[in-house]
């Protein structure tokens, strides 16, 4: 019970933050809705854990808890991959800037 209340407070805070960001036009409606959906789903799972079992059975996975772990791993891998690509791009952009600076300030000796 305590865990559920704690998690609820936590999620409400996150939702408030996401909502603020959307209102201040720092994110798009789509991003706002996706995050809201994700966190509301997590909230639901904490209050009604049984629903994961229905879903798990439906998808052919033994237990609800297993399903959550499988999904989490998929999501985490996807995010890591995205970050990897992003870092790569940032790296290349930095190199480009550094190169332009070096060529523009070349000294002939």
């Amino acid at each position, binding site marked *: 019970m305590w865990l559920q209340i704690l998690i609820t407070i936590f999620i409400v805070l996150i939702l408030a933050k996401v909502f603020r960001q959307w209102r201040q036009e720092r994110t798009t409606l789509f991003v706002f809705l996706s995050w809201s959906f994700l966190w509301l789903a997590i909230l639901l799972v904490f209050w009604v854990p049984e629903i994961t079992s229905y879903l798990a059975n439906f998808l052919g996975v033994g237990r609800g808890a297993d399903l959550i772990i499988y999904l989490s791993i998929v999501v985490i891998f996807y995010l890591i991959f995205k970050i990897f690509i992003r870092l790569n791009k940032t790296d290349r952009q930095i190199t480009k800037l550094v190169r332009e600076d070096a060529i523009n300030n*070349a000294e002939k000796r």
Partner: protein
Amino acid sequence: MNMKIFVIIPSFNEAERIGRVLEELSILPYQVVVVDDGSSDQTAEVLKNYSVDYLRHKINRGQGAALRTGTDYALEQGADIIVHFDADGQFLTTEIEKIIYPLKNQEIEIVFGSRFLGIKSEINFLKKFFILPFAHLVNFLFFGIRTTDPQNGFRAFKSSVAKKIQIEQDGGAHCSEILAKAFQNKLKWKEVPVTVLYNRFGQSVFASRGRGQSGLQILRDLLFSKIIK
């Protein structure tokens, strides 16, 4: 015909060694471009004594990145032939003439230095029998490269083909990258025997030590570049 020959020397914390290389180069008829890859030592001071073009990366970006900077600069300056060289004295300046000879006198577009064509370089056991053959295999399987030396930083090419072998690998993987691009674009290539002196530093398989990347990091960069393209 008088050709403009540019020698690109990427340098990262080589203040103690680069002087000797520049000393030797000063009597040769090449335009020398030193790309200081964000060194934190006295490199800039040492260079004051030599007539070279000095470019500085404000932050360290890796050997591949520095070579590309020097190459781009040389192209802007109207280079005809571009030579990639090293700051730490592992290559011989006297062999530059040998490596550019096919570009000047034959229908060759790019020349690679090779440690395996007659001239004896002192390569250690592990490197000779395990690491280099493995690099050779990776190069062949993934990139179709058929040179005798899988990793040699001594090369020269005509500026007309520079665009075809543009370096995108900031780190040590640029060696294989240039080879791969030369083969993809079917450039007319040749290998020339060169000497490599392993008297000082080298690369390690696992750990990167100050300068350069380890063999495994290079492998990772190469395979990763295959995945995301």
